[in-house]
């Protein structure tokens, strides 16, 4: 009896030790701050439906625009990177007057503030209000700013989380243009 009890304590503590140490190993192999970022299922898919009356009072339907490039930008007037990237959007819009368009969609913002934002910072491209947040969910937007590049034909080809530059967007545009031209 004495002998049996002696070994049972050892066995139990050895087993507990092994379980606990493998637990520590699991923890040790986890990266700090593994996030859920940029798991966007949209890339390679057809762009979700976006249509409505823009701030300029004109009807806009993304399907009519996909003969060229479309840059869909979700933004908010209170978000600092959005303010900072706005000139870059203006620049990209200027470069692609012929073969592209920017579409801005306020996200987590009021219509009033978004209008003030455009009045103050400029930009003459369509701005659409996402009434039921349908587009935000369809694009899987997490936090502004977020931008999606739609290639001619209507396929989403790239997504950026955070501030973008005109050059960065054009890098992707040229890359895809070259790839299409190659074969």
């Amino acid at each position: 009896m004495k002998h049996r009890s002696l070994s049972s304590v050892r066995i139990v503590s050895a087993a507990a030790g092994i379980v606990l140490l493998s637990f520590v190993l699991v923890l040790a192999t986890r990266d700090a701050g593994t996030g859920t970022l940029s798991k966007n299922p949209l890339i390679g898919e057809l762009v979700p439906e976006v249509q409505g009356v823009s701030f300029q009072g004109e009807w806009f339907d993304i399907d009519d625009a996909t003969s060229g490039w479309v840059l869909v930008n979700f933004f908010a007037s209170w978000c600092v990177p959005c303010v900072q990237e706005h000139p870059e959007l203006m620049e990209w819009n200027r470069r692609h007057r012929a073969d592209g368009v920017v579409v801005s969609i306020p996200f987590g913002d009021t219509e009033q503030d978004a209008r003030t934002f455009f009045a103050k910072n400029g930009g003459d491209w369509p701005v659409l209000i996402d009434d039921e947040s349908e587009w935000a969910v369809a694009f899987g937007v997490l936090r502004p700013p977020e931008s999606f590049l739609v290639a001619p034909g209507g396929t989403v080809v790239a997504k950026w989380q955070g501030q973008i530059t005109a050059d960065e967007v054009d890098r992707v545009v040229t890359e895809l243009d070259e790839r299409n031209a190659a074969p």
Partner: protein
Amino acid sequence: MNGYRRLSWLLILLVVVGALVGAVLAEDPPATEAERAYEIKETMLCPVCDGQNVLESNAPVAAAIRAQVDELVDEGRTDEEIRAWMARQYGDDVNANPPRSGLGALVWVLPVFVGVLASALLVLAFTRWRSGREIKPSEEDVQIVRTLREKS
């Protein structure tokens, strides 16, 4: 005195049963659409706010999900359809309830398993303690008694 006590217990039992019946009767009829939407929002986590659910979070994405859930419930989509759609858009970890299939189901099963195992061990210990209560004198004890007797 004993009869009085028995009566008191009966009375307590009556009150308890009565209260529980009352509690069941007072319960709301099956969920309305609004309650269904509420329930979905409560069990869906905001993807950018570290574990807060979309009902309570102020983040824009939570507001967006709330609005869409309302919309989809209005359209008559089922809970499963709505959850699956959100999981596709934002990842499986928007659902606060871990899945009930695959590896994820372990989180539901393990506690039950451990609980049953631990209770079984406790019951086993009790029965062993019980059976061990009629202590028989060990050989050593017998020896001691014998030597004492011989001495006297």
